[in-house]
C-alpha cells in the first residue's frame, strides 16, 4: 500500500487515489521509425530489481500525471517529480546515489 506525494498538489496520496501508468521516460517512436525502435518503445521494459522510474497519475485527486523514482525491492520512494521533463532531477539522482552508489537505469546514472 504505497503512498506517493503528488508533486503538483502536494498531497501525500494513498495508493487508492493513484493509478500506476508504467515505465517513465519512454521515447515515442512514430511513423518512419525502425521496427526495433518501435518495438522497444511499445514493449521492451527495464523491469529492474531495484531503482526504477515510473509514471503515476493522481487519478482520484488532482488528475495530474507525475514521475516517481522508486525501488521495486524495498518500495522506497526516492522522490516524485514533474511529468514534463525528460529526465529525473539531479537532486533525486543524488539521493539514489547516496543509497545505491553506481546505480544506473537506461541512460541515467
Amino acid at each position, binding site marked *: 500500500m504505497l*503512498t506517493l506525494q503528488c508533486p503538483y498538489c502536494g498531497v501525500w496520496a494513498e495508493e487508492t487515489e493513484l493509478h500506476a501508468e508504467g515505465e517513465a521516460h519512454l521515447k515515442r517512436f512514430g*511513423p518512419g*521509425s525502425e521496427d526495433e525502435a518501435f518495438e522497444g518503445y*511499445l514493449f521492451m521494459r527495464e523491469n529492474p530489481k531495484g531503482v526504477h522510474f515510473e*509514471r503515476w497519475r493522481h487519478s482520484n485527486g488532482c488528475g495530474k500525471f507525475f514521475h516517481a523514482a522508486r525501488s521495486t525491492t*524495498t*518500495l522506497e*520512494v526516492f522522490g516524485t517529480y514533474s511529468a514534463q521533463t525528460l529526465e529525473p532531477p539531479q537532486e533525486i539522482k543524488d539521493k539514489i546515489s547516496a*543509497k545505491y552508489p553506481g546505480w544506473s537505469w537506461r541512460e541515467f546514472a
Partner: protein
Amino acid sequence: MSTRLAQGGRLLNKGKQLHFSFNGKQFTGYEGDTLASALLANDQLMMGRSFKYHRPRGPVASGAEEPNALVNLGKGGNFEPNQRATTTELFNGLTCESQNHWPSLEFDVGAVNNYMTRFFPAGFYYKTFMFPRAAWKHVFEPIVRQSAGLGKAPKDRDADTYEHFYAYVDVVVMGGGVAGLQAAKAAGLSGAKVLLMEQTAHWGGRSMVDGGEVDGQPVADYVDALVAELEAMENVTLRNRMMGAGVYDHGYVLGYERVRDHAPLESGPRHRLWRIRAKQIVTATGAIERPLSFAGNDIPGVMLASAIRDYVVDYGVSVGDRTVVVTNNDDAYRTAIAIKQAGLEVPVILDARAGGGGALADEARALGIRVENGKGIAKVKGGKRVTGVAICAQAGEGAVLEEIKCDAVAMSGGWSPVVHLWSHCGGKLTWDEAQAHFRPDPSRAPTSHDGEAFVTVAGSANGYLDLALGVKDAHDAGKAAAKAAGFTATRKAAPKAAEAPEAAMEPVWLMPQGAGPELRIKAWLDYQNDVKVSDVRLAAQEGYESVEHTKRYTTLGMASDQGKLSNINGLATLAGQLNAPIPSVGTTTFRPPYTPISMGSIAGEARGDVFQPLRRTPIHAWHDEQKAFFEPVGHWRRPYCYPRTGESHGEAVKREILQTRNSVSMLDASTLGKIIVKGPDAGKFLDMLYTNMMSTLKPGRCRYGLMCNENGFLIDDGVVARIDEDTFLCHTTTGGAERIHGWMEDWLQCEWWDWKVFTANVTEQYAQIAIVGPNARKVLEKLGGDMDISKEGLTFMGWKDGKIGDFDARAYRISFSGELSYEIAVPASQGRAFWDAILEAGEEFGIMPYGTEALHVMRAEKGFIMIGDETDGTVIPQDLNMQWAISKKKEDFLGKRAQERPHMASPERWKLVGLETLDGSVIPDGAYAIAEGENANGQRNTQGRVTSTYYSPTLDRGIAMALVHHGTDRMGEVIELNKVDGSTVKAKIVDPIFFDKDGEKQNV
C-alpha cells in the same frame, strides 16, 4: 474434572449469570467468561476433533493461539464456523456446537483414522490413491474432502453489517499489555497522535495474571492508573477488542475491531475494519508459550502452563484436580503455585533441566510441591482426557520411572515473541540462543517510503520476558517511535521496577531427548493438522529439507492458528534432523492477518445495491419506474429494453425497433462520453488522437472519428463536434469516457506538454436524448423554440445551439440508426423535464423509449460498427474497411506506426462483411467460419468469425456482421459457420449495410 472454583476469577462478574448451549446441552457461565472458560467450568473439556485423525481435542491455550477449541457458533444468518472458544466472549443465549465429527463429538466415525495413524504419515496421499485414474476424483477426493474441513459451511446470507474506518496517526501501538500501555504513554507524552489497540476486552495482558511490581505498586494497580492516564490524554485513542491484523507497506495498518461479537443484540456493525496510515508502529504483541513435544501431548487436559494459570486466575476455573507441571523454564512454576494456592493439587513438577529452576522453584517447594529435576514425560495416559503421566529421565529414551495419576498436564517449552506484525512487511528476525526463540532484529526493521524503519518492538515481543526489562524497553520504544514520527521524545524516565531473575531456560525439542519412533509418532507439533515429530523427521528424511518444503509436505503450521504454537517446535525438530543450526533453517513467511478476520469486514459496506457505485442519468428514475430491464455498462445501468406486461424481451426489442423505423422513439443517450477539448492547439491534438483529420472540421459541423492506441488497435469511436475555432466536443462510447479522457490527458501532460490544449470531461453535465424516426422532426417542431431544425436549417452532421421549447438545447443531427435523428443535449438539471416534454409531444406519434438492444440491432441493420462487438482489442480500422476514416494526409497519429508492421499491413487479415443465412435463421453469437483441414496442433482451420448477429425485425430475418478472410473480395460466396452442437449454418457473404443502403431515410 474441570470445574468452577469457589474463589478467583479476576475477569468475572459473578453477579451476572449467562445461559448458553453447546451441542444442544444447556450450560451457564458468568459475564466475563470466554466460551472456553465457561465450557471448562461445566466440565466440558473436549471441544472438537482434530483435522486428520479426528482425535479428541480440548483447549490447549487461553487466547488467540488456540488451535483446538473451535466451534460452529450461532445460527442462520449469524452462523460462523471455526470460532475460537478462547477468544469468544460469552453472552447470554450463545449457541454453539463442536466441529469435525460425525455423528457426535463423543463418538466420531472419522476417528477410525486415528487407528490408521501409522498408515497416514505426512504426505501419504502423494504416494497413493493413484489407481485407477478416475478414482481420485470420484472416490478418494470426496472422502478426503469430507473428513477434512473443520466447521460447517454457512447456509444463509449474512445478517450482520460491517464498516470501514480510516485513521491517520503518528504512532500505532499494537497490544494493550503493560508494554503497549507504557509505549503508548511514552509516545503520547511527546504530543504525537497515538492509537493503541488491544485484541482482548482487557488491558494489562499477562502481567495482570503473573503479577509483579512497577513503580512500587502492584502491576495491576499500575496498569489501572496507566489506562486512566491514557484515557485522559487527548492525543491518545484507546481501542480494545481491536486486533492489529496486518502491517503493510508505507505504514499501512489493518485494525480489526470486533464491535459487538460479545453483544450481538446491540445495534451497529458487527466488525469494523480500520485502515490506518501510521508514521510509526510499535508492536507490543507479547509472547506465546510453546508446548513441549512428548507422547500424548495432544490428549485433552494437556495444556500450556500459562493457559491453566489464566483459567485459574482470570476465570476461577480449574482444568483438573491434579495437575502435573512439566517445563524447561521457571515461568511454569507460577502455574504450579497458582494451582496450589487455589487449593488444588500439583503431584509433581517435572523440570527437564538437570539443574532445575531458580527462586520460583524454591517457592514451589516451599508450598510443598514435589519437584523433579532432569525429568520429563515419557507418555501421557488417557483418551478423551488425561488420566496420568509416565515419568522418565529427559536425557534418556523414555524408560518409565514412575506413573502418576493426574487429570491435567501443564506444559511449558519456553516463550516465543509474537513477531508476526514485525515480519509482515519484511522485518527480519534474529535467533536468541539463551531464550531459544526468534525475536525481531532491530537492525533489519521493515522500512517505509523514506527508506527508514517504521516498526519498533516493545516488551516481551522484543524478547524481554522480565516485567521490569519489558516496561523499560516499552518506554524506550514509545519514545523512539515518537521521535521517528517527528516529535520531541519525552524526557520522563521509565518507571522503576526490579528485575526478577530466573534460572536459564534450556531448550527441549523432544521429550525425552532420545524418544524412539513409537513415542515420536505420538508427539504432536501441530494439534489441529495432526503433525507430529515423526512427520517432520520423515519430511527431512525424504529430502523436503527447506522449511517451506517441510511445512507444505507435512502441513505443519498451515492450520487456522497458522503455527502460532507449532512453528518453532517444528523448525527445531527439522533443524535437529538436518543437523543444522536453527537460524540457518529459517522460518516460514509470516503473512497477514495475525489471526483470521471476517471476510465481511474486508468487504465492508459494499454489498447488494451498493456493491459498487451506481451511476444514474438524470432520467434513470423514469426508467426504473417503467420497470426497464437493465444491463450493466461500466458503473451505469442502461435500459436494455422496456418490456410491457406479458411481453418477452425479444418482443419488446422488436416493438421498439419497428416504432422507430415507422414513426419515432427516443433513447436516453446521456451515458455517452462528452469531452471538451479546447485551446489553440486543439485541432492539432485531435489530429493525433483520431485516425481522421479533425482540424479541418468546420465550426457547426460534426465528424465521426476513430481512435486507436499506439499498438494500432481500435479503442473508441464517436462523433466530434467543432464548437468554435478553439473548441471541440468529443463524444466517446459509454464505457470509454473516463478512459479516453485519461488517455487525452496522458498525451497532453506527458508527451505534448507544450501544446496549448485543455480538456474537460463533461459527460455528466448534460442529459442527451436521441429522438429517432421519420416523425422525429415533427415531435421537435411541436415543442417549439427558436431553433431551425428543418432539413436545410440543420443539415445532416450539423449541430446547433438554441431553444427547444423552453430548454437550453444543443441539437446534433447525427444518426446511429439510419433514421432521421436528433441527439439533443440539455443541462443535466433539465434532463428529466426535457424527457417528459418529448414524451408528451410525441404522444400522438406513439413515441416510446428504446433500449440498448434496439440500438444495437438498428446500427447493425445499417452496418455501423460497435466498439466491443466489431472490435475486441485485436481489430484495426483497416479490418473494418474504414480506410475512409484514416487520413492519408497526416504524417502521424496514434497507432499509425503500429499499423505499418508486417502483420497489420498483411492482406491476409480478416475483413468486415455482412452475412445472410440461407435459411434466414440467426447465426449464433460468436460463431466461427470454418475452413478446410486442421492446423499443426490438430485444430480445425477457420476463415472468419461473426462479430454481431441479430434477428432484424425490420427485415424479418437473421443478419450478421463478420470478419472473414479476404471477405470483401468474396461477395456472394456461401460460407459455413459452426454451432456448438457440431452442426453448421450456411450464410452468404453480403454488404454489411442491410437496410437503406443509400441513406435516404436519414437524409430527409
